[in-house]
């Protein structure tokens, strides 16, 4: 069953520049798709368009159907129910995604209360559980803390817990590990992989890093200058890229990686 159906999506600025150009892809329930591309390729704008969150001065055309709701041109009021319930998002920079003035527990409690109707002690218990799920140590301490009082990796776990609190059918992750250290990144990828598997959730994973994408997704769509260059199974694309741009992308990644292998040779 198709959960997200994007057809001919085009994003334009008010002065007529085309930032995403005639993009089409689908994500079925439980499926994982990676959007990969370099800065300016339009991958993040695509995720914003999917959620109907494009900034002022940009408009989308074409069709984006998310769980049966047409997101393009829909009234803001009809979208609030879709966001969170059908799709929730984790952004790159957890410090800007979290409210600096609200304790982390309350930020998770809000979507939880909305979905479950829990209050008081039961709600606190659900928050505790949500924090435990993303494997945060001392969930009660973290629930009382403010965003600046915990580490970057912990903040991103809180952001993930917030997104999962709504039990969305599609998790959109926009460079969720780019701001993290490499060992924290590895833990976070493993966590996303596991949690999504348990819930049979679909994932749209945006990244500039092929190796990171290949850890989480099965299929990948390569973007350049707002267009889809190539799409297919991650392993096929990494092993045998067809398009010139994808070949350059894979070659660059391989070249850096090979430096590590040379040094590691006994």
């Amino acid at each position: 069953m198709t959960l997200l159906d994007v057809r001919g999506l085009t994003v334009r600025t008010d002065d007529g520049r085309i930032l995403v150009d005639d993009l089409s892809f689908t994500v079925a329930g439980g499926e994982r798709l990676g959007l990969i591309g370099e800065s300016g390729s339009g991958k993040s704008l695509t995720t914003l368009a999917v959620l109907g969150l494009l900034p002022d001065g940009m408009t989308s055309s074409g069709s984006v159907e998310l769980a049966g709701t047409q997101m393009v041109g829909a009234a803001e009021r009809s979208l609030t129910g879709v966001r969170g319930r059908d799709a929730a998002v984790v952004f790159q920079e957890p410090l800007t995604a979290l409210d600096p003035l609200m304790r982390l527990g309350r930020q998770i409690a809000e979507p939880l209360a909305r979905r479950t109707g829990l209050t008081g002690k039961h709600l606190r218990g659900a928050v505790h559980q949500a924090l435990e799920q993303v494997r945060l140590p001392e969930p009660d301490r973290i629930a009382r803390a403010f965003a600046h009082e915990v580490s970057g990796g912990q903040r991103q776990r809180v952001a993930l817990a917030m997104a999962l609190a709504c039990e969305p059918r599609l998790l959109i992750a926009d460079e969720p590990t780019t701001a993290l250290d490499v060992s924290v990144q590895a833990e976070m990828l493993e966590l996303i992989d596991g949690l999504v598997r348990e819930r049979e959730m679909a994932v749209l994973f945006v990244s500039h890093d092929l190796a990171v994408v290949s850890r989480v997704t099965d299929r990948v769509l390569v973007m350049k200058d707002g267009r889809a260059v190539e799409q297919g199974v991650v392993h096929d694309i990494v092993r045998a890229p067809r398009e010139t741009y994808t070949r350059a992308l894979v070659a660059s990644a391989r070249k850096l990686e090979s430096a590590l292998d040379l040094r590691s040779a006994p």
Partner: protein
Amino acid sequence: MTPVLELKDAAVRYRGTAADVVADVSLAVEAGESLALVGESGAGKTTLLRLLLGLARPTAGAVRFDGAGLNPRDREQMRRFRRSVQCVFQDPYSSLDPSRRVGAIVAEPLRSLGLDSRSTAAPKVAAALERVGLQADAVDRYPHEFSGGQRQRIAIARATVCDPRVLLADEPVSALDVTTRVKVVDLLAELKQERGLTLVMVSHDLSVVASLCERTAVLERGRVVEQGATSQVLGEPGHPYTRRLIESVPRLPV
């Protein structure tokens, strides 16, 4: 041979805090042997770089330049130091003055070190820009007209225009896309080869470190847990922290 730059049992403690952010750090930068400082956020990499740049002073231990203690009050020594040791920062968007033309930005070290006048600086600026692969007409343009990779090239041109011996680089490629990253790594390798530049690089990207540096020091919570030849440290890591770092690097499927 006397190391160009050396930290001897250096420690830094920020005012009002109970613990040292870096402690007991001894490192030597020998000419021609590029050194990488590797570790995660908060490990003290940038603090060490600030020591090596003379921007911070150790609360214990010493920073030595050409064998002599670095003294920010010694103007003659600082002048030699600034000429020999230049730096490139992580973010090419905040490290270039947006209101000045590229020509003036790149000429800055020559002018502030009193090496050149406006007219004698021009050919050196042109040569520096050419070395980093930018067109000669870049001098009349502003930083915002360039992409991230090109800006980092401008920053490298500025840092190398006065022919320093050592280039300190703080995560010089981590803000760049992977294809651009490869090109800037190639450029740094070329500058090492052709101009005998010694790099001291702070990075959390082990593949970049392996591409550029002969020696590696691994930092964990302000202490050096392992240092030596890069092939040794990354190839046969002795410390569990180093092993964990290496295992965490995401790899492409084979």
